[in-house]
């Protein structure tokens, strides 16, 4: 059913429109003046001023691989993150530790670990799904590059962003 919207009845002063127009112009002029003399401060000069210190704890930036205190890359190349990743940004080629290696009991490590940052949607599912606490979303947000290839983070880059994570569970150390 059609709805009839009743229009407000305007008195003579309102129908002239001029007072309303002039008051509107006064408002914009006030904003202009305040901004011109630096009395309002809303925007931020981005590359010089940054919002980083105000970033919330749960901010989801670039995903990254972490090492633990023993210096091992925590990823065991189980490929769960590759499987869960909605835009399929992650590509893992697993490798096997040689027999005599100090981490040989872990068996696998990521030979290559690429995250295509053009595809990544910063959803954090990889962090959530990881059984090894190996991948974390860090606070880096300015991911730039001149080519598509630049935008793919390889293992070294991911470890560089990730750094060392302290206080995570070290279950492989107990395993015999």
């Amino acid at each position, binding site marked *: 059913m059609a709805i009839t919207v009743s229009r407000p009845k305007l008195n003579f002063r309102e129908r002239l429109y001029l007072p309303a*127009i002039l008051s509107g*112009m006064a408002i*914009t*002029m006030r*904003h*202009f003046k305040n*901004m011109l003399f630096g009395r309002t401060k*809303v925007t931020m*000069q981005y590359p010089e001023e940054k919002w980083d210190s105000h970033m919330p704890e749960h901010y989801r930036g670039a995903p990254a691989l972490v090492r633990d205190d023993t210096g091992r890359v925590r990823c065991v190349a189980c490929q769960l993150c590759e499987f869960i990743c909605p835009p399929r940004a992650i590509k893992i080629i697993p490798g096997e530790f040689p027999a005599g290696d100090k981490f040989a009991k872990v068996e696998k490590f990521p030979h290559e670990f690429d995250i295509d940052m053009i595809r990544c949607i910063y959803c954090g599912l990889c962090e959530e799904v990881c059984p090894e606490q190996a991948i974390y979303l860090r606070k880096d947000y300015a991911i730039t590059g001149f080519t598509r290839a630049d935008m793919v983070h390889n293992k070294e880059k991911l470890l560089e962003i990730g750094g060392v994570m302290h206080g995570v569970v070290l279950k492989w150390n107990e395993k015999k």
Partner: protein
Amino acid sequence: MDYAFIFSSLIKIAALLAVVLGIMNYAVYAERRISALIQDRLGPNRVGPAGLFQPIADAAKFLLKEDFTPAHVNTFYYWLAPCLAMIPAITTLAVVPFGSSLFGVPMVIADINVGVLFVFAIASLGVYGIVIAGWSSNSKYPFLGGVRSSSQMISYELSLGLAVIPVFLLVGQLRLTEVVRYQIENGWLIAPFVGDWGNLQKWLLAIPMMISFVVFTIAIFAETNRLPFDLPEAETELVGGYHTEYGSMKFGLFFLGEYVAMITGSAIIVTLFLGGWHFPGVPDGSHGWGWGLLNIFIFFSKIAGLLFVFIWVRWTLPRFRYDQLMRLGWVFFFEIALVNIFIAAIIIAYLPSK
């Protein structure tokens, strides 16, 4: 032919064009900065000190973009339209006195006796650029923009023409230099603070002149397709209106043509109502070239002030609906201008001018 005349004219044309094109570029910059400040932003401030080189960057961008012609357009008219939009806007400046005199040369390119009619005639040709752009783009939104523009411009030309009649009833000439001369002797038409203070007619006439000024200014807003009358290009309803299909410098010509039209419109308003290049207490160019330059500077400062008003209004008022626009033009301004002529004529005829 008089070679000195041709030579001085050419220099005047070149200088005026350079100044106006410079103002045009910085009008775009001013628009962006002022709109930003009004909206509590900062605007372009990166290129050069305070972003002052932004116009150069903009121009480089326009020139370097791919000059793309869509396949479905009528190519000849598609290329013709941007030129037709730009030329009338610049040509109008030929009759506007932009200064007193410099080294004895009057600072007006062509002082013809039908000055203001020339302005209207050439300005009315400006609609061709927009209409042809809309038609030749062979696409629906530009076409709607072109149709809107032609009816809007014709409607507001009436108010424009009628609004200035009181000025010429008073001055008795259509020549723009005469209008300025009258205002030097009797004060600006809307604020006659110079000359004979006891002149009752002058003070009474300031009322119809004020009405003329308001109607004329609003009609200029409509003629230059500025908000709140920018229906031909209304982004929210017509994508880009008549220039939807245009890119790179061809779009640039439309865009800058709008600013040149604003500058010429302001120049006409300044000349007719705000005393032209005259400012109380500043002698004209016959007292030395410094004063002549100062007069030119005063003229362009007044234009800059009006451009600020143009920008200020644009970022304050919302767009009119199309039927409101037409009603405003035909029912209000047309009648107000007619009654205004009547009032001005009565005052001029029955009140002593001395």
